């Protein structure tokens, strides 16, 4: 039942005959998870919170970067450097205190996906890379959850609803990912700021239709648009005859061909000595404890493994970052944690750590 406060707040919905209090109560009862609080996540979350969706889960392991503000309208200039999910939770709570916001400050992975997705009725994909898109799709198929898909590139966008009552899914549309060189993301290719606003709003619209049980949701169809000419098409997606069977979650970085071989993730003490001697532009991080650092160090920035998450905002995402500890084990753990939970792809481990470096001299 809606309270008097809610009846006042949602008055303009209640006036629409097709929507009415039945539609509004369905929104209130819904639990929706939005993957990614970025360009697409911004309008999706703002509109769903405003519309009165009862529970909104938000998952993102990133912090706000200045270059996000051109399109990620959840944030202000004062948000720079802060965790996206925390800023988002504050913004949505202020927009609509009747919504329950459930933040997850981590990246979605094959390990946590099923546990996190399980409790929600509807999943919305606002992620920004192919491995996550295949992961979200497969997890939705395994858990029988409907998925609202949206993706953007420069001036173009796509929207669809997958896996709704066994309808076609992302793999029926794109069975295999494109090679990485033909799959640029927003950071590499650029994107018009208003485009995620359009595509994310269309995703929010599909979500509200599905939840309230109105209209004709975009099930089994792909909407595609080019914003430069406003060319749009809706294409029917058939089920693939030779369908890939999804029976478990896999390693999606490997599936998408972007996994870095282990040897490429290491630098030897000799290589590091050269890099230091030649004054190369890279960030050196020491993940040992302060007392160890006091005894001996290489002049790296001290970010102890035990409190590493406090420092993620200070780790460079653009240039090469070399991480070391005493013997190479803790730094390996640090790299794994930063890759899996925060999406860093530019980290290398000093093989053998400080001990091996000192032995060399």
């Amino acid at each position: 039942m809606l309270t008097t406060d809610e009846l006042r707040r949602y008055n303009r919905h209640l006036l629409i005959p097709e929507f009415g209090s039945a539609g509004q109560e369905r929104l209130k009862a819904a639990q929706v998870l939005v993957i990614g609080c970025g360009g697409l996540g911004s309008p999706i979350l703002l509109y769903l919170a405003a519309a009165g969706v009862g529970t909104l889960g938000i998952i993102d392991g990133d912090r706000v970067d200045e270059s996000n503000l051109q399109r990620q309208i959840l944030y202000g200039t004062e948000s720079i450097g802060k965790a996206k999910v925390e800023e988002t939770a504050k913004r949505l709570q202020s927009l609509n205190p009747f919504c329950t916001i459930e933040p997850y400050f981590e990246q979605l992975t094959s390990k946590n996906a099923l546990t996190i997705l399980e409790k929600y009725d509807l999943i919305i994909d606002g992620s920004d890379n192919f491995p996550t898109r295949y992961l979200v799709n497969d997890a939705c198929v395994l858990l029988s959850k409907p998925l609202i898909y949206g993706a953007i590139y420069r001036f173009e966008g796509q929207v669809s609803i997958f896996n709704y009552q066994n309808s076609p899914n992302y793999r029926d549309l794109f069975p295999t990912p494109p090679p990485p060189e033909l799959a640029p993301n927003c950071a590499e290719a650029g994107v018009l700021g208003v485009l995620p606003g359009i595509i994310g709003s269309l995703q929010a619209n599909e979500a509200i239709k599905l939840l309230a049980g109105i209209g004709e949701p975009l099930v089994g169809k792909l909407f595609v648009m080019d914003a430069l000419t406003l060319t749009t098409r809706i294409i029917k997606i058939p089920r693939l005859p030779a369908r890939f069977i999804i029976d478990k979650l896999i390693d999606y970085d490997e599936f998408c061909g972007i996994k870095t071989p282990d040897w490429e993730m290491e630098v030897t003490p000799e290589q590091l000595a050269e890099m230091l001697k030649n004054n190369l532009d890279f960030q050196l991080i020491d993940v040992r404890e302060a007392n160890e650092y006091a005894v001996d160090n290489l002049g790296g920035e001290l970010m102890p493994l035990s409190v590493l998450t406090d420092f993620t905002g200070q780790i460079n995402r653009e240039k090469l970052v070399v991480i070391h500890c005493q013997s190479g084990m803790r730094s390996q753990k640090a790299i794994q944690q930063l890759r899996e939970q925060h999406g860093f792809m530019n980290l290398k481990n000093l093989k053998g750590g400080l001990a091996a470096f000192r032995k060399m001299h």
Partner: protein
Amino acid sequence: MNLKILSFGIAKEIIGQLELSVQLSDSATVADLKQFLIAQFPDFQKLSSLRVAINTEYADDSTLLHSNDEIVLIPPVSGG
């Protein structure tokens, strides 16, 4: 026969324009069209996941094309 090709995403980058008109033999299929595109624009070779839609529906390789069909090329994009 004359066909109109409408392309999105990286396909539009490869072809260099949103719309393109091409001439194919009268009995051409989707497979022939793909071969033609690869011959004209070798980068299509790398897009193994490229699906071809005819008018408003996805088609498989054996589907026959008809004059004035609109071919729509929609490669996956990942931005968010």
